[in-house]
């Protein structure tokens, strides 16, 4: 969730001096933004320091990412002002950007607009820069999808061209630099720049780099990295040319619309924008920005139904005004006009949310009217709970270990080999503790014992949880398996103790030992050479069905001393681990 910093006094003045921090926090809560912090509440402000408000903005509300946007939206919400109508007005001399064919290889789209007769102050300038940063970070996906260039229109000459050139052939002085560089040098130069270096990867290996030129072949920007020093904006700039390049046509339009709707406020004629025509190599022409209101038809019945209120269409239309949405009632229908500031509205349900906010979430009548349904546990969880309780009642303590672990934990440390047909491996773990999904619960329990050496022996620990196994037969290529694992750590291994617990668990599941019966569903321990266990002290736990067929459930044994050493344990441990899903 993006956070913005707002000058407290300026905002409170704008809203008519009716708020203190507490009541403003309530307003934010109601509107769906969050006052994270008021710097004047944190401690004494330094001499001359102005109180700042840190406000969390929902990730889809790009129109609230600057002072201009949030103050206007709150002003309208409080009905102190009407939402402006944004207008595209023709320029005296039309602006044009011609796109060259090579751009398609690297960054195909460009849009533009001109803000005429802008009056900048230090605060407005900073807000303009900050908004671009926020948009670059969120909507533009760290400039990968979209990147913004802004220029002092009076320093350049149209028509402009958007081209893709070999880096060696691009020569200019980047913003705030004195050295003239070619494209290769730019990459090299910004390699150590904390801010710009994060974007170098977007074009570094491309044979051609995107570049914007003016009519005199002066480089204006090298998207998505840097603008030129020549065309940079200062506080004295009156006419601003915005060019935005992109790989995503939807998001580039959203970005342009947000920028011009926010800052056209400071134009000679507020809320007007001059268009830029973009001509593509195939001759197709487009004019930006597209500020026309979108129409979305909905009904009172739908909106009332979603929110759970009963308002007339006219009342709904009034409420939507608080959210900067103009609505026309046409019989049963409500036609909502969506301003260019609200690309987040995709469907009627988005209008329903705005209606709910305008009405007040906490004023909605709380009426429970759902139909009755029948509860049921998931059978596997029910089975797990039976096994868990049985083991705990027998005196074992339940652990809950992590399902991700290192490859070694699951294999080498248990003296097991990875044949590649069992384990799910992660692509991008940040720690070696998260290399794979466990295929056994045992390593987690051994680590638990290792962390709890301070307690008197014996330690009896168990877990009933899922492991993950590869399975090429299912769509997802892997599936969980519910295991039960219990171990006993003491001065002597005492195999018979975990064996006795296994007997109890089996008894609870109505399965008898082959020692006690020779028919029915039975279980049997079959001595086996299992590297995790001490030779001669490991066995497979087999389930024998009534028809005589058998199934391996898991293993039981005294752990191999090398395994114990690998988990930094000095006491003998015996354990069993079985798959309980066959008991479903």
């Amino acid at each position, binding site marked *: 969730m993006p956070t913005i910093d707002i000058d407290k006094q300026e905002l409170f003045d704008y809203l008519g001096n009716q708020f203190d921090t507490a009541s403003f926090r309530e307003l934010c809560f109601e509107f769906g933004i969050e006052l994270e912090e008021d710097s004047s509440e944190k401690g004494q402000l330094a001499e001359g320091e102005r109180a700042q408000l840190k406000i969390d903005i929902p990730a889809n509300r790009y129109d609230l990412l600057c002072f201009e946007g949030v103050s206007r939206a709150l002003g309208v919400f409080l009905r102190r002002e009407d939402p402006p109508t944004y207008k595209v007005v023709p320029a005296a001399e039309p602006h044009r950007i011609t796109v060259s064919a090579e751009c398609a290889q690297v960054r195909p789209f460009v849009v533009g607009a001109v803000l005429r007769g802008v009056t900048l102050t230090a605060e407005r300038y900073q807000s303009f820069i900050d908004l671009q940063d926020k948009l670059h970070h969120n909507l533009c996906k760290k400039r990968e999808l979209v990147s913004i260039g802004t220029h002092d229109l009076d320093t350049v000459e149209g028509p402009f061209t958007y081209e893709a050139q070999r880096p060696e052939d691009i020569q200019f002085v980047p913003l705030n630099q004195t050295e003239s560089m070619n494209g290769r040098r730019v990459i090299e130069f910004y390699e150590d720049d904390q801010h710009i270096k994060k974007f170098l990867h977007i074009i570094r290996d491309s044979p051609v780099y995107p570049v914007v030129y003016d009519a005199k072949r002066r480089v204006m920007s090298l998207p998505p990295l840097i603008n030129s020093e020549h065309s940079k904006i200062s506080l004295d700039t009156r006419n601003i040319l915005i060019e935005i390049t992109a790989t995503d046509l939807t998001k580039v339009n959203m970005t342009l619309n947000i920028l011009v709707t926010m800052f056209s406020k400071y134009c000679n004629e507020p809320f007007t924008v001059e268009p830029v025509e973009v001509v593509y190599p195939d001759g197709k022409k487009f004019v930006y920005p597209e500020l026309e209101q979108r129409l979305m038809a909905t009904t009172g019945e739908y909106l009332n139904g979603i929110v759970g209120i009963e308002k007339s269409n006219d009342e709904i239309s009034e409420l939507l005004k608080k959210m900067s949405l103009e609505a026309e009632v046409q019989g049963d229908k409500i036609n909502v006009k969506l301003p260019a500031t609200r690309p987040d509205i995709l469907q009627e349900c988005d209008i329903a949310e705005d209606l709910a906010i305008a009405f007040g*979430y906490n004023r909605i009548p709380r009426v*429970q009217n759902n139909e009755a349904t029948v509860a049921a546990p998931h059978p596997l969880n029910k089975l797990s*709970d039976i096994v868990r309780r049985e083991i705990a009642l027998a005196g074992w303590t339940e*652990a809950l270990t992590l399902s991700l672990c290192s490859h070694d934990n699951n294999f080498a440390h248990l003296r097991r080999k990875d044949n590649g047909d069992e384990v799910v491996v*992660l692509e991008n773990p940040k720690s070696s503790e*998260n290399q794979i999904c466990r295929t056994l619960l045992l390593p987690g329990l051994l680590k638990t014992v290792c962390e709890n050496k301070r307690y008197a022996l014996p330690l009896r620990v168990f877990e009933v949880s899922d492991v*993950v196994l590869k399975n090429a037969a299912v769509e997802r290529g892997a*599936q969980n398996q519910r295991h039960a694992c219990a171990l006993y750590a003491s001065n002597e291994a005492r195999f018979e103790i975990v064996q006795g617990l296994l007997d109890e668990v089996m008894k609870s599941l109505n399965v008898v030992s082959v020692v006690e019966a020779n028919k029915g569903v039975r279980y049997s321990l079959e001595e086996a050479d299992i590297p995790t266990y001490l030779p001669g002290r490991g066995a497979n736990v087999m389930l024998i069905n009534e028809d005589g067929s058998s199934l391996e459930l898991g293993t039981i044994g005294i752990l191999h001393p090398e395994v114990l050493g690998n988990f930094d344990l000095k006491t003998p441990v015996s354990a069993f681990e079985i798959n309980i899903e066959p008991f479903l």
Partner: protein
Amino acid sequence: MSEELKLTILKKLDSEGSIEDTTAAFKGVSEEVVLGALKSLESQEKVAYVTLTTEFWTIEAEGKDQLENGSYEARIFEAVPAGSQGIAIKDLEAKFGKVAKLGQGKCLANKWVKKDGDSLVRIADSIVDQVKAGLETVHATGTHPSKDTIKDLKRRKLIKANKTVSYAVSKGAQFSTELKKQATDLTMEMMQSGAWKSAEFKKFNFKSLGVNPNGGKLHPLMKVREEFRQVFFETGFEEMPTNNFVESSFWNFDALFVPQQHAARDLQDTFYLKDPAVASSLPDFWKTVKDVHEKGGYGSIGYRYPWSEDEAKRLVLRTHTTAVSAHMLNKLAQGPYRPAKYFSIDRVYRNETVDATHLAEFHQVEGVIADKNMSLGSLIAFLDMFFKKMGMSDLRFKPTYNPYTEPSMEIFSYHEGLGKWLELGNSGMFRPEMLRSLGLEEGVQVAGFGLSLERPTMFKYDVSNIRELLGHEVDLGMIARNPACRLDKKMGREALQRSEAVDEI
């Protein structure tokens, strides 16, 4: 022996009324033995006693030497002959060794002798050896009337402090000279013989702890899970099969109308799989999902970007159990309309850097309600009831943004002790783009809500580091000690009063 001593004490009390000092009365019996007998008698209320402590001084090895042979300074004085000739210091040292140096200093300080060149010459004609006299008194009486003397002797390490403990004994409420053997426990033998009827039971100390049963224990997180499950069952929810940690991006994101460029799908946030890396296939309705992302539909304009099938096939560790809810809703849509309530409590994964409050895996509690009557108002009413069962009655809702719910609400509860609103979880109405592509008919509204299981557990059980709750770093003692979970009762940090809560904020 001890029975004998007890009888002796009782008889002495019987004849003398009281015993003023046990050390004097029972010479040669050690203090511990006397105390044992007295405690036993006291527990039967046969006697009462008070402890008497006496301090006394004993003479150390060096003190014994000076007690027998005179103090060092006296010995030196005696060695200095009368008259102006005196004695050469080096002769003294040859004769007395170490004593010469120590004694000389004192002799000079006492002005018994003076230095004359390399010799010592007498000033006093005769002296009194106060040190020896002091030691004699201590030897005879164990102490000395003059505090200064004691202090001086102690400083010279000639004497050492000692303590004797003895007891003054009087008759107790149940005094008698008869000593009956007391039973410490009721035994089967006593039951059989009937001896319990006349047995006198040793007084029991109830201000004690019993023997730890060392039984098995359930994990606190699982106890809280059980409480949540119970509330879900009470309110008609069916548990979802969440035993699939691996999901395709399609089910985890695309089917939920999360666009493919969404930040949640970054490598920074989501675990992708290397092996297996991709799903073998996508469900039949994948084209519907593709369309709604690319072009919209169901009244939506969509996200308008080129949707990639390959991206949708990439396997991930599920980032939320909502992936499973999507499966369930898709399944529900196969049959004729019926209202449904589903829940799950299971693990989800985030590619987080681990710290005290974040793990790469945690448990998500999720509920989903599909109903034609579902509205934001009825969801709020449901959540009111749901959380009331957990002892939280004062709920408030804040508009928020989730990519797959609209309208969306954060759920807050007021905490009296902390004096602030705490976020409990997230909720909302699933978007039509998601529901309709999953096959649900128009008009079926589905609400969802979710919260983490770890957060309330840490709150209830006062655990501040998540690693000490979930995972191998858990303290087994904590598991053994902690109480049962009753969500409707205030526990742990939740039970904090305002005054105690200051540190929390």
